[in-house]
Each structure stands twice: as structure tokens, then as C-alpha cells.
């Protein structure tokens, strides 16, 4: 018998006004700027809603910038993103792929629409997450996980109702493709109308879901739509999802990191002194060099 209690929905949030990042990405920041949400260890969620990218010979995007102290997770839903970093990693993220970049002690990075996609133009849609790291790991060596969609484990729902792609963590025995520093779960649920499934997370895990496409009813009471983010309270352990249309849902849940946070721009550390050190290290070339 299932004695688990349902997690309550604490907020259903519309996408904030999008801002241009660099010269290409048009992004709504759900948190930390858009809404004040308890989603630790997920520090930031940037959502580029579906948009029509005009054809351009010169790919647009965001030029060279540093990161220290956390991981960036880029998930492409439509279109393609090319990236390069100062540690020599580069590649293209196609729809369904995930780039899990551990900046840790410091890296320079740039992200652009992929060349052919940029010339062709077309639909673009993407999420970027910033996942915080424990203090003891923030100065670890940078690491790069280029996860192709075919390498992501999938839990298949009954009656062909869809799949749950396990990007990180675990779902019904299917282990996530990404290696993480703390206990967290990231799934893409790609489901058909009428699909029903349960999500189960400890009550103290900070949990939210991003409706990338479609519409759902949560816990048989709350209807949510495309481009909304749903935040859950820290009570209960289960979430019941029923898709009322063909849907794509990004699920985030993780054990909070109980440490102070000091952030300045693309540096997420624990103290003001560490931020000053990060600035000094960045200015003195310790993050490497990357041509614009």
C-alpha cells in the first residue's frame, strides 16, 4: 500500500520577460532573478522559449565568459548549440542532447547557434541550468560530459504513453547518464496525451518542473501549461502527473547543499573572499584563454 504523501504545489510561475543574452539567446530567468525560489542545489534556470531563429551567416550567441564554482547543464530541445571552452572541449548539442559542464575551479566558455542551423534558421528552444557544487569540490578540475540522447537511459511508460529520459539521478531503476557531485535528479519526460506517471523524491529535496511543451494536471488538482515552472513545497514525497496533451517536461529535484552562497556574476562560491579570489584568478589568466 502506498503510504506516501503528495508534494504540494507551492507556486505555478509564468516565464518572466525574456532578456537578450549575448546577441542571440532570448532567455527568461525563472530563478534566481525572476522568482525567489528554494531550488538549491539548482542555482539558476534560464529558459529560451520556442522561437523562430532567422537565418544568419554569422552565428549569434554569447561570447567568451568565465565560470567558477558550479556546473552548467545545457539541454537542447529544438535547434542546435555549438560550444567551446578553454580546456579544449568543443562540440554541438543537438535536440535531446545534454551538455553537463563542470566549471569547478575555472573555465572560459562560449556558446553559439551551430553553424548549419544558423544558416538554415528554424525553431530554437533550450534550457540552461546552473547546478551548485559543494564547497569541497568547487576548485576541482573542470570536467566535461557531452551526453548524446542515445546514451541517456529511458524508462518506457506502459501502453506507449512515452518515456522518461534519466539525465541524472535515478528513475524506477534507470540510472542517469550524468555523474554528479550531490544527490539530484534531472529527467526529461516526453509523453503522449493521457500519459500518467508518478515522481517520487524525499520531502526535503527541492523540486520543480518546467513545462517545455504541452499541458498537465498535477496531483489531480493543478493544471499547468507550456512555458510555466511549477515549484513544490518541502512536504510529501510524490507527484502525480497526467498529461492533457503531448508534453515535454523537465523535472528537477535535489538534496539542498547546506552551505552559504556568495555569487558575483558567473562565479558561485561560499564567501566574499572567494569571489575576490575568483576575480583575481580570472583576471590573471588562471581560467585559460579562448579566442572570441
Amino acid at each position, binding site marked *: 500500500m502506498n503510504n506516501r504523501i503528495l508534494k504540494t504545489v507551492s507556486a505555478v510561475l509564468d516565464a518572466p520577460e525574456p532578456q537578450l543574452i549575448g546577441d542571440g539567446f532570448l532567455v527568461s530567468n525563472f530563478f534566481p532573478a525572476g522568482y525567489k525560489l528554494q531550488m538549491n542545489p539548482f542555482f539558476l534556470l534560464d529558459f529560451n522559449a520556442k522561437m523562430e531563429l532567422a537565418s544568419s551567416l554569422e552565428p549569434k550567441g554569447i561570447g567568451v*565568459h*568565465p565560470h567558477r564554482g558550479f556546473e552548467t547543464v545545457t539541454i537542447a530541445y529544438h535547434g542546435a548549440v555549438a560550444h567551446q571552452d*578553454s*580546456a*579544449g572541449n568543443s562540440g554541438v548539442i543537438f535536440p535531446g542532447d545534454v551538455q553537463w559542464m563542470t566549471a569547478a575551479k575555472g573555465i572560459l566558455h562560449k556558446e553559439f547557434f551551430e553553424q548549419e542551423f544558423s544558416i538554415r534558421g528554424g525553431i530554437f528552444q533550450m534550457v540552461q541550468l546552473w547546478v551548485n557544487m559543494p564547497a569541497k569540490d568547487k576548485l576541482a578540475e573542470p570536467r566535461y560530459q557531452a551526453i548524446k540522447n542515445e546514451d541517456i537511459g529511458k524508462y518506457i511508460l506502459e501502453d506507449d504513453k512515452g518515456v522518461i529520459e534519466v539525465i541524472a539521478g535515478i528513475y524506477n531503476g534507470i540510472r542517469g547518464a550524468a555523474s554528479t557531485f550531490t544527490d539530484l535528479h534531472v529527467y526529461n519526460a516526453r509523453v503522449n496525451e493521457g500519459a500518467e506517471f508518478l515522481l517520487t523524491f524525499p520531502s526535503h529535496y527541492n523540486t520543480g518542473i518546467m513545462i517545455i511543451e504541452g499541458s498537465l494536471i498535477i496531483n489531480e488538482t493543478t493544471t499547468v501549461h507550456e512555458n510555466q515552472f511549477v515549484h513544490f513545497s518541502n512536504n510529501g514525497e510524490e507527484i502525480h502527473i497526467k498529461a492533457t496533451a503531448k508534453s515535454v517536461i523537465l523535472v528537477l529535484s535535489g538534496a539542498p547543499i547546506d552551505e552559504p552562497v556568495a555569487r*558575483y*556574476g*558567473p562565479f558561485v562560491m561560499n564567501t566574499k573572499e572567494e569571489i*575576490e579570489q575568483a*576575480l*583575481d584568478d*580570472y*583576471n*590573471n*589568466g*588562471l*581560467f*585559460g*584563454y579562448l579566442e572570441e
Partner: protein
Amino acid sequence: MFDQFKEYLRKKVTLTDEQFDLISEGIKVKTFEKNQIILTPGEISTKTYFVAEGLIRCYSIDSKGKANVIQFAPEQWWLSERNGFFNEPSDFFIDAIEHTTALILPRNYFNDAAVHVPCLHDLNNTMLNNSIRFMQKRINMLLSATAEERYLDFIKLYPNLTLRVPQWMIASYLGITPESLSRVRKDLAHKHFKP
């Protein structure tokens, strides 16, 4: 915003809340949008800006159309166009690089405020002398320092501007080409980056 100015002054002089209230009467607070032009050459400006939040700059445009940055003013920095003190038109532009909130102090602010808080007279002298000292060092840098020396001095003075200002603008301030600045940063990375 006034709290930030009070905190700034209290690092340098002893000041009660009542004294601060007296001396802050003539001060206005203004917000500037990103890229908003605050002053153009030819205007007479008698104002001094104290940046509470954001970033403004003072610059000229030369005959080739190139912007030459005289000074940046991020948080807790001052910026004032000095021809205005003599009622002469400005040689320079001032604009906001970021959305900025600044306190606007009128001409002779410190002399007037010193009537209520006498030690502000000495503070003003110290600040003016510091400004002149800073300008001397800057002239010397521009005349004689290598590109790397200029850059290393810049990052000590303005540690976070490399994240906020495009590279060409930093190069303009340093009096070097963007290519030279890029080369300096590349050389530093080769020296210090261990992949």
C-alpha cells in the same frame, strides 16, 4: 542609496546621523538607463556623480571617431567633469555603461557641507590630492608602461570591470589596441593556466 554614501563617508570621517541628514539635503538621486548619455561636449556641468549602483564612464571621441576612455566609475567611485568647475563647456562625454543609480552632488558641495561638519574640508582636500596623484600615475603609465604593466595595474584598480566592460573599451582606457590587450591576456593564460 543615501546609506551607501553615509557608509562611504564613515570609512573616512566620524559622522553622526544628524550631521549626515544636514549635509545630505542638497543631494539628489538619479537613475540612468544603460547607454544613456549623461553629458555631452559643449554642455557646462557643475555636477559630481557618486555611483551607488552601476557603472558610468567619461570619454572623448577623437577625430578618427575612436572613443578614448578617461575614467570609469563603478560603485563607490566619483566622477566629475572638471571644466564645469570653471564654468567652461565640457570636453567629454559621460554615459552609463550599465543601469546606474547615482547621487548628484552640486558644485561646492564639500565646502558647503563643511560648515556643518568641518572635517569634510580636509576630506575634500585629501580626495582632490588623491585624484591628482592618480592622474599623475595614469599619465606616467600611458607614457612609459608596457601593455602588460597597464593591464596588471588596471585589474588591481578595477577588479571586476573585465566582467562588465567589453575588451575594446578596456583597451581604450589603457591606451593600447584591443589586439595588444588580447595578446597580454593570452600570454598571462599561457603562464598561469594548467589544464
